[in-house]
């Protein structure tokens, strides 16, 4: 199943000016479990997807909200010269092709 079919929300935002946090939210327990167990959403695979160093992506399941949080450091501090996305709201694009 594609992540875009399994998730109801795929949103990206700054967590303060130093990190990007991406929330994946699911409608039911089955889809949340599928995503949580999928190797596609492993820290190693996600680092590759974003071109980041291994070990730099945290994957934090939040079962209370049937959600998975991804966190990684920004390449530039928000608003520094060369930043591409000051609010960090469009950094979810690389996830949209993920197969669970």
């Amino acid at each position, binding site marked *: 199943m594609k992540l875009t079919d399994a998730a109801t929300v795929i949103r990206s*935002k700054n967590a*303060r*000016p130093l990190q990007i946090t991406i*929330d994946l939210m699911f409608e039911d327990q089955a889809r949340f479990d599928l995503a949580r167990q999928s190797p596609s959403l492993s820290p190693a695979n996600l680092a590759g997807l974003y*071109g980041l160093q291994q070990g730099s992506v945290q994957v934090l399941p939040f079962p209370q909200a049937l959600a998975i949080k991804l966190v990684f450091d920004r*390449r530039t*501090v*928000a*608003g520094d010269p060369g930043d591409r996305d000051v609010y960090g709201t469009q950094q979810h694009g690389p996830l949209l092709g993920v197969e669970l």
Partner: protein
Amino acid sequence: MSAVGKLRDRFPRGPETRPLPALAASGQLGYGIPEPALKAGLEREPDFIGCDMGSIDPGPHYLGSGQIATSDIMTRRDLGLVLRGARALDVPLLLGTAGCAGARPHLDTTLDMIRAIATEEGLHFRLAAIGADIPADTVKAARRENRLRPLGQMAMPSDEEIDGSTNLVAQMGTEAFRRALDTEADVIIAGRACDTAIFTAVPEMLGFPLGPATHMAKIIECTSICCTPGGRDAMLGTLEGDSFLIESMNPARHATPMSVAAHALYEQADPYKVHEPEGTLHLDDVVYDAVDEHRVRVHGARWEQAAQLSVKLEGAIPVGERGMVLAGAADPRFIAAVDEITEAVEKTGRELLGETLGGDFQLFFRVYGRDGVVPWPDPPAEPPREVFVMVECIAPTADQVKTVLACCKQYLLHHGFPGRLSTAGNIAFPFTPPEVLAGPAYRFSLYHVMQVDALAPLFPIQVEEL
């Protein structure tokens, strides 16, 4: 008697008296408060009204420049709405992070608006303003004494960077609002403040437990964002002691256990912990119960008082003047060769301008349609049909920016590359001049935690009668 005096009288037995309804009127005042929900909220007769005006999301420009992020016209309109509402009910109004960034210029701009509204509308009240500006010497002393800790990838600032920052602020916590309430102010406007502090000062004053109070503050400060569908309508939080009830003042926005739980994720790297100057909010054992399809009751948040007081510092420093060239292209050969072309143009530009300008400028070629937004590790499977090219320059003066951009624009337009067919021009301008000056540019110089012995000396209060 002051609004806060009357509020104390209404709670003779503190939290045992009755639940405490608080109205969050706006999560970012100045972008247009939806009026029907605010009106519905005021009809519920809240014991106090809070509004956040701030955020660090818009980046370092507002803190650096001292400009407020919202328009004057809409900010006045929103301030008028909440001032009239609070004065009509005679309840305290607490406003946090004046003018988006909460430094002295933002606070002064907002104070002038409040004074003008009071005069125009014949409103009379006691106004307390809490400053959040931190002197550079205080920050330098903290660094020397190893009381300054960088967050994340921030570097330790040099003395020059601290002195060169146009504004330095610290996020105040509940303590500052408590002191302002003690002045018997009816309206409190704060410089840079924790969003939660706006809503925790009154509950703390009345003796409500800080775990649920801080958790409720954390949720309602964003108004109806925690609902499904989310929105910007006023939110009512009713603190019951160990639990609280939340409800959107727009009947179309429903707080559900899932939507409210999910809000703990919003803009947070750790959904289980929220750090404040006075302590940490722990959300591991929180339970969300549906009361009906519109309301949720929450309990289980735990407050841990900090052993060491600390404040988060924010500073912004100018990096020069910014300008850009705006252009597009629809030629597949140009699009395929765009990296080689922009590299060559930059090289030519630096050679030409090196002597004239001393070479002291930064250039960024942003190719939208390809990787202007995300630094993708791989090229797209199919090249885009069109791309938008923004050439951004940062240089010490506006004249230098204009010189660099004009030069780059012309060489980008006429750069000859292998296989080129369109020998009359490589890029399309939607208008001329395509060079647009954007004014001073800033970066964050400080995003650090400073340990302190006491909070009160950092956040002075000025009181005036209107």
